[in-house]
Every structure is written in structure tokens, then in C-alpha cells.
């Protein structure tokens, strides 16, 4: 018993220490309607697409999802609809200019601890260091430039604009990482409703059957 108490005490101490180590992430509420995701796609193509690919997404997927045909045509240029959304810059060129090939963004929301909140915090995490170059609070070793110009803008109206842009981009990337999420949730509600009714009925069946026992 004594050892148990000791273990529990030690656990609670180190649990506390462990929780403090993680930098707090800004919470982002994702948008899931087609218009917002389309806005995010626009922002993403403008800010990220030069270097980053999304190889599991095809231009046709954007159309199927319900985005504007003209917009999609504008983004893809002369590439066929069925081609994947690849970066405009080749991987080797990007590696030459940034020292590291920019990662594919298809699964980025799922591939980082903290998910969408992490990406949102990271995009907005740029600041001007004392040396006058941009740094990032959440990923200090990052090679990515401050694409949203977070570090150079003042607080106020323009800052909230940047926040909205980051939120659009992350909302789009969340859709890219899990394009069936909305369908899954919708189906999930039906499944839950069905199972709840079924289980309640099975409970009464069980009760009824067992009531025959003396």
C-alpha cells in the first residue's frame, strides 16, 4: 500500500511537470462550408502552392467537392483536371533555395501533434527577432518564410485579417487531410441514433426474456 501511495504521488508530480512543458497552442475553430474552404484554397494556392504540393488531391476533387469551376481552372492552368496538385517549384529547386524540400501538405493537419491548432499557431507564430529576421515561436528551426507577413504587420485590423486568412488556409488543409469528414459525421449521427434505439429495445427484450425466470 505504501509503495502505491508513493507511486501515485510521484505520478501526479511528474504529470504536472510534463503538462507544463508543452507550449500552449492557439485554438482555431475550423470552417467546414464549401465557400470558406474555397476561400482557404484560394489563399493556400496564393501563399503555399509555389513550394508545397498536395499530391493526394486532384483538381477534379475540388470540383466534385463543389468549388467554382472557373476558380479551379484558374488554379490548374493548363494541367488536366485529373492531375494532382503539385508544387509549382520542383523539389530539387526548393531544396536548393531553402535547404530542405518543403513537405507535402495533403496530411499535414493529421501529421502533427496538435493538428489544426498547431498549424494555425505555427502560421501566426512568426515574430521579428532582435537581429531583424523573422523567427517562429512554435517551430524555431523552420525554413519556411513568413508567408503571411505576420512578423511585419502591426496589431489591429490587419492582424485580424491575417488571422482570418490563416484560419481559411487551415480549414482548407483540414478538408484536404480528411475530405470525407463531414460525410463521416453525418453518417455517424444516423448510426448513433439507430444503435441507441436498437440497444434500448434489446434492453427491454433482455428484461422481458429474463422475467420468465423464477
Amino acid at each position, binding site marked *: 500500500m505504501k509503495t502505491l501511495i508513493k507511486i501515485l504521488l510521484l505520478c501526479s508530480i511528474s504529470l504536472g511537470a510534463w503538462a507544463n512543458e508543452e507550449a500552449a497552442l492557439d485554438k482555431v475553430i475550423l470552417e467546414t462550408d464549401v465557400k470558406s474552404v474555397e476561400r482557404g484554397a484560394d489563399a493556400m494556392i496564393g501563399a503555399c502552392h509555389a513550394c508545397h504540393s498536395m499530391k*493526394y488531391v486532384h483538381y477534379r476533387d475540388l470540383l466534385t467537392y463543389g468549388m467554382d469551376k472557373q476558380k479551379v481552372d484558374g488554379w490548374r492552368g493548363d494541367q488536366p483536371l485529373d492531375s494532382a496538385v503539385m508544387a509549382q517549384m520542383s523539389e530539387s529547386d526548393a531544396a536548393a533555395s531553402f535547404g530542405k524540400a518543403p513537405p507535402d501538405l495533403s496530411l499535414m493537419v493529421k501529421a502533427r501533434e496538435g493538428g489544426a491548432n498547431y498549424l494555425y499557431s505555427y502560421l501566426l507564430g512568426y515574430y521579428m527577432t532582435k537581429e531583424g529576421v523573422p523567427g517562429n515561436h512554435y517551430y524555431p528551426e523552420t525554413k519556411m518564410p513568413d508567408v503571411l507577413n505576420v512578423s511585419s504587420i502591426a496589431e489591429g485590423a490587419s492582424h485580424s485579417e491575417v488571422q482570418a486568412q490563416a484560419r481559411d488556409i487551415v480549414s482548407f488543409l483540414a478538408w484536404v487531410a480528411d475530405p*470525407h469528414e463531414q460525410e*463521416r*459525421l453525418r453518417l455517424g449521427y444516423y448510426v448513433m441514433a439507430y444503435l441507441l434505439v436498437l440497444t434500448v429495445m434489446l*434492453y427491454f*427484450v433482455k428484461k422481458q426474456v*429474463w422475467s420468465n425466470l423464477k
Partner: protein
Amino acid sequence: MPGRIIEWIDQRFPLTSFVKHDLTGYPTPRNISYWWNFGFLAGIVLVMQVATGIFLAMHYKADIAMSFDSIQHIMRDVNYGWLLRYMHAVGASAFFFVIFVHMARTLYYGSYRAPRELMWWTGQGLLLLLMATAFMGYLLPWGQMSFWGATVITNLFRATPFFGDQVVIWLRGDYTVGDATLTRFFSLHYLMPFVIFGAVFIHLIALHTVKSSNPSGINLADKDNIPFHPYFTAKDLYGLGIFLIVYSVFVFFIPDSLIEPANNIPANPMQTPNHIVPEWYFLPFYAILRSVPNMVGGVLAMGLSVMIFAFMPYLDRSRIPGGARYRPIYKLQFYLFIVDMFVLGWVGYVPPTSQTIVIGQIATLCYFASFFFVPFISKMEEGWLLKKGLPAEVTALIEKETQDKEERKLKRLRG
């Protein structure tokens, strides 16, 4: 007409008597609680894993250049592929959860005691098969955790005396985890469930010989056994409903909660993740592995931590039936053991620090101590409880068991 067909079959195959003896009329103790639902649930999860797995295999490609992409193909392009994959991934966790509860129930109520030792040991074999199947399945998505998890675990076989290095190469089919490893893991991951089916069948034959245990631990009189159908079909189906609700919450609303973010990054042999963690169901055993500073010792400790359950029928020397029900000290030991499992699980999850290593070592000691002391504690507890007085039927059962044992001994001596 159907009657005549059944009659025709019965003359050639024991259909009616089998159904009556082993399905509908199978005598089951009426006092078993909902904790006895989990064996049935394990069977259902096994069927669900096989069913979803067969369809996943139709779209999956076991090739290191294609497997990660083929998972994304399943998730994005295959009709309801995301549902199949999430059901299968969540199903693996559900399987372990159900099995762990099933084992905890056996330990709590002392169901491993005579005459159910073979049930416990075939169950132990099933646990090993399940672990191997889950481990090999985890490599298939070819993410970072898949690759590094398989690398770390296959590497443990270096502890084999004399030809450790050769064993590791033999297991991987290559010097490192690579395409040869992926294809053989896929092949075996497809084969193992059918081996599990066979082992489940043996487990059930043993069950139908010794019948279900029950919370009292006393063999019930015939009047206290009721036919499986309709009583336990109704009860099991209600339990299944509850299970499916919890399962569906995971599948539809938080499917990624059980998938490590790093496994959404394709395997990269050139880059080790900061922190390699196994799936949650291996965490306590992983913690034990890491708690022993020496590699061979760690591997032995981990192996023993899984296999030690098999010794329970011999370690527990108390003649008092019903496990924790009549045995307060055993009950306390049981709960301490569960707490210890959670502590170990947590230690296995967090990145090791000097503090967690010490906690892990204490918890590992507690883990083995709780088995090691069972023979002494159970014997002392028995003496104490017998002096204190037990329900009449319990004492009667103990006397009868002792008598039977003596008689068998005498018979052997004469024979």
C-alpha cells in the same frame, strides 16, 4: 419439408443435437454478470476485423513504394474506404480492450482455477496470437511509427543467444525493415486471423467441457443453470449494442485519436522520430522492457510479463473459490495490479526522463511482485479466512475438493 431435410441431415450429421447441446440448450450459470459478456464480444470483434480486413486487402498494396499511397487511396477514393479503414483500425484497439477486460474478469473471479486451466492457457495463446497479428498489421500503413515500431521490436530478437543477429535478419528478410519485411508481415497478417479462429474453436471446446465459471466460484446445481438461448442470446445482444455504441463513437467521431500523428508521415529510414511509442495496448509491456537497463534482461522481463499470467493456476494456492468475491486480500491485490498496469502504461507513453524511469522500475517490480507473492499471500489468506468463517456452501466445496483430490491420489497409488 424443412423437418424432413433436418431429419435427413441428422441421420448423417449431428446437427440437431449439436445445436441443442452447444448452442440453444447449452447450460449457463444464471448468476453470471455482464463481465461475462466480453468473450462473446471478442468473437464479434474478430469477425468484424476479418470482414473489414478482407475488403481492405482488395485495395491495399504491400509494396514499400505504394503502401502509404494505397492507404490514402482507400481513405479518399474507394467507396466507404474510410469507413472500412477506421473500423479496422479502431477494431484493433477494441479487440485488445475487450480481451483485457475478459482477462481481468478471469483474474478477479479466479476463473483460471481448476478445472479451467486449459481455458486460461488457450486464452494465453490467443493473446499471443492477437499481439503478433496486431504488431504485423501496424507495419502495413508504412508510416513513420509503423517502420520504427517494427524496427525496434524486431531488433529485440538480437537478444537470442548465439545467433541473435541471424534471427533478426531472418525475421526481417533483409538487413533492415524493408520491402521483404512488409510483404511477409502482410502475408502473415492475413493468415493469423484464421489461426486465431482455430484457437478460438479449441478455447470453446474446452469451455463447453468445463462450462462457464460464475461469480460465486461454486459449481452450481442443475437448477441454477439456464439454457443459453434465449437468456444469454438476449443478454449478449444487449451487451453488443452497448459495445457498438462506444465503438461507433470512435469510428465516426474520433477515429484519429488512436492513430499517432507521426504515422501520417511516410516511413523514412533516414529520420528517427523524436519519440517512438507503440500502440496503447502494448504500452505497459513496453514500459517493462525499457525499465530494465540491460537489453537481454529487458526482453526477458517483457516476455515474462506477458507469459506470467499462465502460471496463475499454480501461483494461487488458496482453495477458496470465487476469486476476489470471498477473498478481501486477493481483491486488494487485484486492484493494485490494475493501478500498476495504468502506471506502466503511462510510463510507456511519455518520453523517458530520469523520473519516469524510476517510476517505471518501481512499477515493474510491483508488477512481478504481485505475481511472486501470490502463493504466500493466498495461502495465508486462506488460513485466516477459514478461521474467520466462510459461507457454508463455500466450506463444503473446499472440503469436497480436498476429498476428491485425496481420492484421486489414492487411486493413482493403487493403480
